[in-house]
């Protein structure tokens, strides 16, 4: 080992780690400094806690048909101490449905985020680093996916594979990963020209090692951003599919609640307590994702920054 290499080696070892810390530390600082991002994170935290403890929080079984003390059906009751948001036209407790409905939304949102971020990152890394055929295929696949209408595609996929949540996640991931891959690819293209990658190459690091140890950590914040985008899209898509009646009707979700309210003439009868809360919950969860990712986007793409 000559002198130059000996001096390069520790620097190479330290750089990616420092870069990785730098990226995540910047993310943490952004969260603390940006009040919107803090609000977003807090909303997420509340829904995650509600989702995890839903079976204990829900006062009733969300599907149970309830009866009043005098034996009559507890149908379309207005809000009261027993039923904070009243009951459905079939005598089901709305608060319990709302609380249990948190689970499918969070499951769909988080799994779509993981799927989009991981597929997008791996393909983006390969396309950006190796170029050539992988790159060409990625570009053509992106074109094709942009030609598929979003919601109609998800509807057809659920008709084909079944209404289960994982099929909705699959369809959403198919449509969203190419965006993430394209952005990560261009990041990799610029990173490959950077000195620390060059330095790693000089010290004899293999291509795969450079890619996954030196380049990959620097693009992870971008993966996280595209994962965050996917959360909102997936939750809105699942709700829409459930509303259109192509979802899993046996599982309570905010979308099925709204479909139930719509089909049972809750709008006609002005049962606002039935159909407003579920919508507000969807808005809050999706908005939380926007609030977290918005400022973070400015941080990652300084060109788009407009605070001058």
């Amino acid at each position, binding site marked *: 080992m000559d002198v130059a290499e000996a001096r390069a080696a520790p620097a190479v070892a330290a750089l990616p780690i420092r870069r990785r810390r730098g990226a995540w530390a910047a993310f943490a600082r952004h969260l603390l400094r940006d009040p*919107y991002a803090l609000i977003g994170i807090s909303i997420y935290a509340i829904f995650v806690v509600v989702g995890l403890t839903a079976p204990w929080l829900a006062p009733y079984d969300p599907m149970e048909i309830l009866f009043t003390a005098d034996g009559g059906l507890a149908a379309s009751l207005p809000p009261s101490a027993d039923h904070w948001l009243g009951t459905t036209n079939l005598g089901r407790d709305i608060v319990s449905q709302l609380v249990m409905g948190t689970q499918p939304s969070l499951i769909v949102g988080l799994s779509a985020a993981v799927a989009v971020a991981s597929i997008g990152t791996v393909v983006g890394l390969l396309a950006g680093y190796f170029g050539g055929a992988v790159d060409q295929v990625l*570009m*053509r696949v992106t*074109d*094709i996916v*942009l*030609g*598929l*209408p*979003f*919601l*109609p595609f998800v*509807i*057809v*996929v659920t*008709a*084909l594979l079944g209404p289960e949540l994982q099929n909705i996640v699959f369809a959403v991931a198919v449509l969203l990963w190419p965006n993430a891959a394209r952005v990560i690819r261009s990041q990799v293209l610029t990173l490959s020209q950077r000195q620390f990658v060059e330095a790693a190459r000089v010290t004899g690091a293999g291509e795969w090692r450079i890619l996954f140890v030196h380049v990959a950590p620097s693009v992870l914040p971008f993966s996280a951003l595209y994962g965050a985008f996917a959360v*909102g899209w997936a939750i*809105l898509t699942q*709700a*829409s599919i459930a*509303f*259109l*009646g*192509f979802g899993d009707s046996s599982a309570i979700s905010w*979308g099925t609640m*709204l479909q139930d*309210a*719509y089909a049972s003439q809750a*709008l*006609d009868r*002005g049962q*606002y307590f039935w*159909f*407003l809360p*579920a*919508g507000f919950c*969807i*808005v*809050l969860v*999706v*908005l939380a*994702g*926007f*609030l977290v990712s*918005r400022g973070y986007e400015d941080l990652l793409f300084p060109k*788009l920054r*407009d605070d*001058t």
Partner: protein
Amino acid sequence: MPYLIRRLLQMAFVLWAVATIVFLMFRLMPGDPSAAFIDPTFTVEQQQAVRAQFGLDRPLPQQYLIYLGNLLHGEFGLSFRQRQPVLGMVLEVLPNTLLLTLTALLIAYAFGTLLGALMAWKRGGRFEAISVPLVLTTRAAPEFWVGMVMLAIFAFGLGWLPSGGANVAGAQYASEWDRILSLDYLRHLALPALTLAIYLQGLPALLMRSSMLEVMREEFVTMARMKGLPERTIMLRHAARNALLPLVTAFALGFGQSVGGNVVVENVFSWPGLGRLLAEAIANSDYPLAQCAFLLIALVLVLMNFLADLLYGLLDPRVAHGRG
């Protein structure tokens, strides 16, 4: 190769790929596609004759070639339920979808552009602090739910507007134009168009805001300021006009996406359009109809993507036509 020809070839490739994906998806659908045409009283020979008529007795690759050939000839098959050509059924509702989309987009872009320009102008003030989160909220709200709230308030609560459909049931019109230009149609169009517009205005508003902020940093704006032009003139004449460019492509892209994205709004308001037809066809397992509706939605999307790409290159001289 000239840019336009390369882009056209690329579009043809995408159309072929989408058609192939559609073929595979609908061929894998559960159930026998010919079952709807086979009566239990049919003899085995008759059943086979029906299958042969649909080409279902042939190997899959051959079916695929027949399918592609039929598409090129505009043959989309017969509806399982209505027993009539699906293309006619789809084309019949297409104007409703296009009108709904166009109306909503025009409202959304007129409002969104103004809002975005204002947000950039009043940057850092209370107006921006309120409007940006508000715009984000409209983008986070599920369209079908916004539609439900609209229905509850304006149709059922106040009784101002009809709750669904495109025309009063049983109304007779001399021509399609008379129907569309009637006040009745406009009253039916109002709520779905407004619902869609509430969602759609967020993109032009945010785009216009960042585009304005970018333009306001450019030299010619500084120059105008140095010349002592009033702030209002600078904003309207100089900044806003140049900042509009990215919105033109966004409009074209938005049109393509909205034709397919209308599905939920059309269903909430029972608007007789492509999206509602698609959802109904799938719920009824009427696959030829669903396939035709899907292909048409995809065709509009691909054409609009193509148009947006062309406009982008035409309007922004900084974009070299050499990109792939």
